Structure formats: C-alpha cells, structure tokens
C-alpha cells in the first residue's frame, strides 16, 4: 500500500478550505496566505503526480480502491490516465493565480455598502472547488464521480452569488439582484443536468450491477456485458446532457455569460477554465468509454451542435457590450472546438481537444484576469467606457493583447496547436465540418481585435487617464501564464506525450481508426 497520492492531492485543498474558513475574522491576510500556501502545496503534489505518471505504463495509474458502500457496489476508486493528469496539473496550476488575482476581491467593501464579505469564506470556497474538481478528475467510480460533480455546484453557487464584482454601473442593489439571478441560474441549469445524469447513473447500475468505470468498460469491451441499443442510447444521453450543460454546449449555454459576467474575474476563470473542463473531460472518460456505440450514434448531432456553438458563440462575442460577457461567449465558442475534437474520434482531434482544455484554461485565465484588473481600475465592465488605455498603461495593454492573441489562437501561442489539431482531426473525417469550423478563427480574430481596439487604442478617455499600470502582484499573476502560453505554443511535446497514449486507448474503446491519407489508401 503505497502513499495515496491522488487522495492526498484532493484532500489537501479540502483541509486547507476548512482551515482557511476557521481563521478568525480579524486575520484576513493570514487566511489569504494560508489559502495561497495550500494551493501551492497542492500544485507540488500535482507535479509529483505528473512525475510519477508513466505515459507508457498502464492506462490507469496510481490507482486506489477501497470498498465504500458495499451494498450498491460503490467503491472509492481513484486512478488517472494521461488526460486526467494533464487536467489535474492545469487545475492545480491555475489555483494559485486565481487566489492571487482575487487577493482583494473579498475584502470588505468601502463604507456605504451594507454587503458583508467574508474574506475567509471566499478563499475557503475556492479551495473547496479545487478539491472537488481534482477528485472528480481522479474518480474512476461513476458514483464517486457523480457525487463530486454535483457537490461542486454548492461552493460555486456561493462564489457566484456572494462575491460579485464591486464594479457595477447600476449600483450595489441592482448588482446583488443580478448576481443572485446568475447564481440561481447556474445552479438550476447544472442541477437539472445533474439530476438527469443521476437517473442515468442509477440506470447504469441496474444494467451493469456496479459503478466501476474500469470493470464496466472491460465488460463492454470483451462483450461480457451486453446493453440493449436503446438502453445504451438513453444512458448515454443522460450522461451527455449533464456534461453538455457543464461544458457548455449550445443551446444549454446561457448560464455561462450571466455567471461569468456577475462573478469576479478569478471566479469567472474558475468557472470556465476549471469547472467546465470537468464536463468535457467527462465526455471523454465516461461517455466514450461506457457507451461507445451510442457515442458513435450521437456523433452527427453533437458535431452540428458543436459547430453551432463555435460560430454562434463567436458571433455573439462580437455583439457584446460587456467585456466579461464577451470572454464568456468566446469560451462557448472554444468549448465548441473542444467537443468537436472529442467527437471527431480521430487521434488528432482528441489529443487536440485535450490539449485545448489545458491551453484554453491558461489563455482564458490570462485574458480574463487581465480584464479583471482593468475592470477593477475603472469600475465598469462596459467596453464603451474604455479607450486609449494602451497609452496610459502599456504593460496592462500588452498582456491583454497577448491574452487576446492567445484567444484567437495565434500560431506560436499554445491554443494554436490544439485548435489546429482539432481542425485537422475533424477535417480528416468530416471535411465539411472542418471547413465550417475554420470560419471560427476569422470570427475569433474579429471579436478579439474589436475588443482590443475599443478598449486599448484610440484617444485616451478622460476616466482612464489616471489609470495605474499593472502592480507587482498582478504581474506575478499574469507573467507566468504568458510564459506558459508561449512555451506550450513552441514546445507542446510534454503535454502531448502524456496525452497521446490515453487518447489511443480511448479511441480503441470506441473501435475507431484514423482515416488513412488518400495517397496511402490509393496504394
């Protein structure tokens, strides 16, 4: 019985959350530092996982398995494949930056506001989310996964509803009402998805008799567990719906703009860069492995929806007046790409999709956090309220531009590699889809550059004339992300090496082979 590394990685932030919450109200700063340290320690553990993980080893590694609810065959089973490792690393990596970026977001408001802002609570909730996300990346028991997939909503709900932007044009009251609206919307959407999934989970249990992903997948593979076609499809839909809401896939996306708009920038990053990834990840791990046939059956529809997400999200991003909403719709478009890559069912597509999850996490974090810094300076989220910032705060503008360029997936920055992989992977099997998706890159350029032009360039607006440039703390947040973007753009090999074997085995689950190049096919 070796040291339970996975459990430790998940439990550490949980303990940290409790500890942070327990810090007396007076020592705000202490709580912040505690949270930061815990997140860093978690990062260290995640890196250990990364090191201990052997890409060419077994499919699931560092596994732990204990009986939990014996009567229902629910087991406490953890295990990571390449995809999970990458995403755990991403989560653990982003957390310190999120915490650092949100350093002052939960400080008590200035006089004149009656809202109470428990600083400790803010950081405790963030850590709680981290713990749950990590364990749902690790869980190889469907039921275990489901529990944390759902439990995640609770801290997120409070993060969205409790700690909105202090920047709001309609004043505190309107802000709080809109906030609660957004929070409730978030909760309802995901709860409904979760309930439908619960039904599917139970159904799976009825069919399979246990919840263990590996056992079921094996049983499906060697034919010892046969599912009626219709059953499999219904179960698949049940799972997929929940993941599609979380992802979010058009037309289940409308909760994301509200949530990201109302929550503070770090929380928005938490939503789109970390929590939503669980959805796409789960599509790869559960939908494809448990219901390969149904996945193939549903592929056409899903591809169309993903296409719609890509184009639609990008177009709406162009039409937004609110910086954060714009980023939200951009994310919807990107999630379209990810899902496209997953269901193209080619190794390029799925490797690309996984890579995309990581890169999108980093790039959105960079863009959104800088946007958050910008907003916190001017106290407004409206694009129209800015202009000429570039002249006043060049560093801020520069970082913002780099984040934007990453969002439009400029070659040399990380997202390009993944996006191109997804496109190629899709194109090889569905050329038309691939071409339509390619329009997304033009639209991406459009909304990013329009945003940059309207906020950063042009004559300096009166209100921003006194805007300070990035502070040290903020630089510490942004700089590593940018370095990472460039590094992964130039040298993504470390990630792809980890991911490829996992993708390979996933593809073998769904019995799909990459289409051969026509030249070889001809020979």
């Amino acid at each position, binding site marked *: 019985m070796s040291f339970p590394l996975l459990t430790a990685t998940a439990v550490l932030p949980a303990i940290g959350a409790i500890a942070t919450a327990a810090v007396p109200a007076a020592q705000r700063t202490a709580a912040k530092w505690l949270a930061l340290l815990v997140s860093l320690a978690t990062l260290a553990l995640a890196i250990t996982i990364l090191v201990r993980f052997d890409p060419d080893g077994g499919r699931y590694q560092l596994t732990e398995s204990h009986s939990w609810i014996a009567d229902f065959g629910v087991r406490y089973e953890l295990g990571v494949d390449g995809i999970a490792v990458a995403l755990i690393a991403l989560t653990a990596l982003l957390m310190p930056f999120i915490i650092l970026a949100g350093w002052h977001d939960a400080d008590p408001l200035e006089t004149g506001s009656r809202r109470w802002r428990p600083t400790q609570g803010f950081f405790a909730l963030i850590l709680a989310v981290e713990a749950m996300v990590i364990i749902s990346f690790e869980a190889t028991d469907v039921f275990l996964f489901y529990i944390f997939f759902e439990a995640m909503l609770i801290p997120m709900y409070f993060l969205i509803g409790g700690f909105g932007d202090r920047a709001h044009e309609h004043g505190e009251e309107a802000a709080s009402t809109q906030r609660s609206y957004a929070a409730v919307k978030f909760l309802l959407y995901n709860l409904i998805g979760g309930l439908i999934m619960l039904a599917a989970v139970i159904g799976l249990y009825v069919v399979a008799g246990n919840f263990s992903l590996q056992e079921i997948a094996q049983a499906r593979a060697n034919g010892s567990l046969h599912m009626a076609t219709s059953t499999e499809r219904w179960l698949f839909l049940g799972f997929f719906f929940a993941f599609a809401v979380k992802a979010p896939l058009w037309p289940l996306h409308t909760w994301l703009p509200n949530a990201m708009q109302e929550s503070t920038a770090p929380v928005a990053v938490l939503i789109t860069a970390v929590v939503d990834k669980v959805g796409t990840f789960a599509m790869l791990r559960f939908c494809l492995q448990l219901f390969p046939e149904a996945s193939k059956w549903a592929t056409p529809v899903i591809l169309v929806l993903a296409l719609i997400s890509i184009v639609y999200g990008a177009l709406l991003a162009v039409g937004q007046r609110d910086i954060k909403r714009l980023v939200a719709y951009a994310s919807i478009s990107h999630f379209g790409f990810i899902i496209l890559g997953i269901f193209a069912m080619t190794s*390029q597509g799925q490797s690309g999709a996984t890579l995309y999850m990581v890169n999108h996490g980093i790039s959105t974090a960079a863009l959104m956090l800088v946007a958050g810094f910008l907003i916190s300076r001017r106290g407004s989220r409206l694009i129209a309220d800015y202009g000429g910032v570039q002249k006043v705060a060049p560093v801020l503008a520069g970082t913002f531009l780099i984040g934007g360029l990453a969002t439009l997936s400029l070659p040399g920055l990380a997202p390009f590699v993944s996006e191109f992989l997804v496109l190629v992977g899709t194109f090889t099997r569905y050329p038309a889809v*691939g071409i339509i998706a390619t329009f997304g890159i033009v639209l991406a350029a459009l909304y990013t550059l329009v945003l940059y032009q309207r906020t950063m360039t042009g004559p300096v607006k009166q209100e921003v004339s006194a805007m300070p440039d990035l502070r040290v703390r903020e630089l510490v947040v942004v700089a590593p992300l940018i370095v990472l973007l460039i590094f992964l753009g130039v040298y993504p090999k470390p990630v792809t090496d980890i991911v490829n074997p996992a993708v390979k085995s996933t593809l073998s689950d769904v019995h799909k082979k990459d289409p051969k190049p026509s*030249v070889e096919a001809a020979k």
Partner: protein
Amino acid sequence: MENLIALLVAAPLLGAAVLLCGGRRLDAVGHWIGTVLAFVSFAFGVILFADLLGKDAEHRTLMQHLFSWVPVEGFQADVTFRLDQLSMTFVLLITGVGSLIHLYSVGYMEHDERRRRFFGYLNLFLAAMLLLVVADNYLLLYVGWEGVGLASYLLIGFWQHKPSAATAAKKAFLVNRVGDMGLSIAIMLMFTTFGTFAFGPVLDGVGDTSEGKLTAIGLMLLLAACGKSAQVPLQSWLGDAMEGPTPVSALIHAATMVTAGVYLIVRSGAIFNAAPDAQLAVTVVGAVTLLFGAIVGCAKDDIKKALAGSTMSQIGYMILAAGLGPIGYVFAIMHLVTHGFFKAGLFLGAGSVMHGMNDEVDMRKYGGLRKYMPVTFITFGLGYLAIIGFPGLSGFFSKDKIIEAAFAKGGTEGWILGGAALLGAAITAFYMTRVMLMTFFGEERWRNQPTRSPEAPSAEPVAEHHGEHAEPHPHESPKVMTIPMILLAVGSVFGGAFFSIGDRFLHWLEPVTGHSEGDSPVSAATVTGATMVCLIIGVGIAYAMYGRRPVPAVAPRGSLLTRAARRDLLQDDFNHVVLVRGGEHLTRSLVYVDHTLVDGVVNGTAASVGGLSGRMRRLQNGFARSYAVSMFGGAAVLVAATLLMRAV
C-alpha cells in the same frame, strides 16, 4: 553550418524579446540593439550564402532539424528549417533591406518616445518573416505567416492613439485571417491527402494523387497568397496599411511581407504545375490585380497610397508570373527582389519627403522639391526609372521577362495576359511619372499655406520637432536616413542587370523552381519594343497632364473612373455595405435571439414553476393538525401500497 539557420531566426527574435520586455531602461539604446541584431542576422545570411555558393548547384540545400514540435498519433509537425536557393534569396532580401530600413528608422523615429517598442516590432517581423521562408513544412510556414501578420498589425497600428491607424491595423489582420483560413484549409487537405505537410513528401508525392485534390489545395493556397499579398479580392487592406510609419510601409508593405504570397506559390510550384486550373486562377488574379493596383495608383493624391497601389500592381506581376508555371517562377522571384530594392527605395524617399514637409502626404501640396532635397530626389528618381522599366535598370529586366513569359503562355490566354501586362506597364509609367512630377517638379505649391493634414499623427516625431508653423521649409534628411536610400538606389539600378546578365539568377534558382523556355509567339525583341512603346506613351501622357499644366492644389472632381479609383474602385464601400453592416445586423439580431429565445424558454419554465409553487403554498396553513392529517393520509396510502404489493 546548418545551425546558423536557427541563429538567423534567433537573432532578431532575441532582439524583439529584449526590446519588448526590457522596459524603459532600454529606451536609450533600444534602437541600436534592434539595428545591430538585424545586421547580425544579415551577416549570418551572407555567411550561409557563401557556404551555399561553395557547394555545387544540386546540393545547395541545408536542412536543420531542431525538435519535434507537435507529435501526435499520425501527425508529425517538426521544427525543421530548410535553406535552399529560394529561401536563401529571400533571406538575403529580408535581412538586407530589413537592416537598411532599421538604420533608416533610427533617424526617422528619432523623436518618438515609443521608438524602442517600434524596433522591437521590427525585429519581431524580421524573425517571423525569416521563419516563414526557412520553414520546411507548411505548418511551420503558417507560424511565420501569421507571425508577420501580427507584426504588420502591430506596426500599422503603431500610432494607436489614431483611430484610423487602429482601424487599419485591425482591417489588415482580419483580411489576412481570411487568407490564413485558406492556408490552414490547404494544410488540412495536404494532411488528408499525403498524411504530412512537409515540403519534401508533399511536393514529391504530387504524382500519386488526383488533380481535383491538387486544384483544391492550389486554390486554397492562392486564397492565402491573396490575403498576404493584397491581391484581388483581398487587396483592400494594403491602402489603409499606409497608416503605419513609412519605414514599415517600405519594409513590410512593399519589400518583404506582401511578397510572401509569391513565395508560397513558387514554393508550392509542384502542386500548381499539376493543377492547371489553379494555375489559371493564379494568373487571372495576378493580371486583374496588376491592372487594379495600377488604376488605383493613378488616382491617389496621397503619395504613400499611390505607391501602395503600385506595390499591389507590381505584386500582381509577380503572381502572374508565378501562375505561368516553370516559365515564370524564376522571373517572379527576380522581379520580387528588384521590386524589393526599388520599391523600398521609393517608400524611403517618400518618407524622407514627408519628413521634410511636416508629414504632409498630399502630393498636391508638394512640388519643386528637387532643389531642397537633392539626395532624396536622385534616389527617388532612380527608383522611379527602375520601376517604370527604364532600359538598363533592374525593373526593365525583370518586368520585361515577365511580359515575355506571359506571351509565352501561348494561346488566347497568352495574348490576354501579355496584353494586360503591357497595359500595366504603360499605366505604371503614367502614375509613377505623375508622382515624380507632382512631387519634385512644378511650382512650389506648399508655399504660403499651412500644410498640416488634419489626420497627420501628432506623435509623428518630426511634427513635434518642428511644431506647427505656417509653412514647411523642406530640408534634406540626416545621413542615417539617406545612406540606406542611396544603397537601395544602387541596388535598384544594378540589381536587374547583375541578375540577368548570363542568367545568373536563373541558374541560381533553377534547381529549386525548375525552368522551361516556353515557345513565345512573339520574339523577345518585339516584346521589349512593345514595352518601350508603352513606357513612352505612359510617360508622355503623364507629362502632358502634370508636367506642362500646373497642378491644382485641390483635386478636381475628375471622371467617374477617377473618383471610383480614388475610393479603391469602391471595393471598401462594397465591404462596408455587405460585410460590416450585414455582420453588425447579424450579430445584433443573434444577441436578441439568444436573450429572448434561447434564454427565454428557460426563464419561462422557471416562471411557470414559480406560479405553481405559489399556488401549492396555500396548502400550508400552519395548523399542526392539518399537517398531521396529511401525514396520516400518507401513512394510510403507504399501508395501502404495501398491501397491494403483497397482493400482487
């Protein structure tokens, strides 16, 4: 020796990194760092060139494999550099002209407080452009391709406080993105067809695949070329790109970046050779653009815009030549190089003129400048002679060859293309003479009138230097600016002759591009003669219109064609009406739909549920006993249920 290739790219990249991350402490020396690194890169280029010359013609290809970039199942993208004669030519052009323009910028941007960043961007551009030409696979080329796009975006929008500049930059990037879309689709097609996109396998494997696929790839590549090289229908951005500082226009939008399209087509020559339809499309695009650009060039009063039009049309020539296949490749590249010299020279001259005229760009407010800025006049004049193809100067050789090749295409196509090329030559002669006359001859229209075009950049260094006085006093530019002009003039004078005599250039490039002599229906001599005639006609008309008669300080209304040409032949208006307006409406309606329809459904459900619960809440009257009743009833139901279960 191969490893130098990496350094070639790395030197300017390092410069960019240092300058952009260095911060204010580098402001003092930043520009020199940038310039030095550009020259260093040039030095590497020369060394490599010498090395290539040392080898025999067949083995003049250096490969350098750095690392595996994107290793994914069945998808291998490596960072591999390939330096053959074609790349070498570009490397020398880019680093050479680039270095000179760096030098020039030192003077030109002297008073701009953001000069350090400017040089950072220039270095970034150099790096990207070099990467583009030494890449060994299309994906890596794509990186350079977008890299130069980014650099040009940053440089066009360098004076970001000018909304016009910011808009122009955005426009350039977007239009380029459309082209890039073509490139990426082409790459995908290659991948599905050949399973790879490295130059070697793709170009060698052409034989194994169907012509249809190749045509598709070719057309996509053409789309990419159109975007980058400002060819019809994606040419609209080049004119606005003149918002950028003049050195940028010279380097990026005249000498190097805009010729990337030509490079792409020539590089992919094998594909086009096997896909005649694609080739035809290329030639058509080239021919149309060379006329289009020329016509636009005639109408513009803004000196830079006029030159931009000319650039467009010259690149049209190159594309046309490239479209002609093996007959034309060499000459396309040759014209590219010579054009790089004289067009860069012309732009630098224009910059020098603006420098002396408080950034006045309206040629109608120039005139008679020759005696105030002699060096500029002479260099500009030489560039002028070169571009119109004055016998003996570089333009003469390269353009002449292209026209020949066009005729040599044979058949009606040959005649049409050749005719277009000839006509283009005539128009070129006309508008360049026009520029020349309006700028350096005639009476001094800038006397006793405040010349400060309203949209002139306030941060344009000279302006701040000179302040706002009523009347400009033209003066020659400092050495640091004139020396590059002189060097480029030399290049534009002797370049063509040096290349063509003994077909040096042909032999140099042939191993890569291949070459075939088409059987021309008209002899070379006839073509040359015809070109001369066109030239004389063009110059003559221009002289008649602008040399003899005084030029009105405000543009006359002009004919319909003139007015259309002033507006880039209404291309922008079309874009504005169709794309911009349409797009705005589309997005706005979509936002509405998203809010009312997609979101409305959900909110509606929520509302109805709320109403229902409101009604149900009446049951809760607070009397413990009535709750107890419901409990009891529930118990009864349970018992009934159990009994029923037992019964069945």
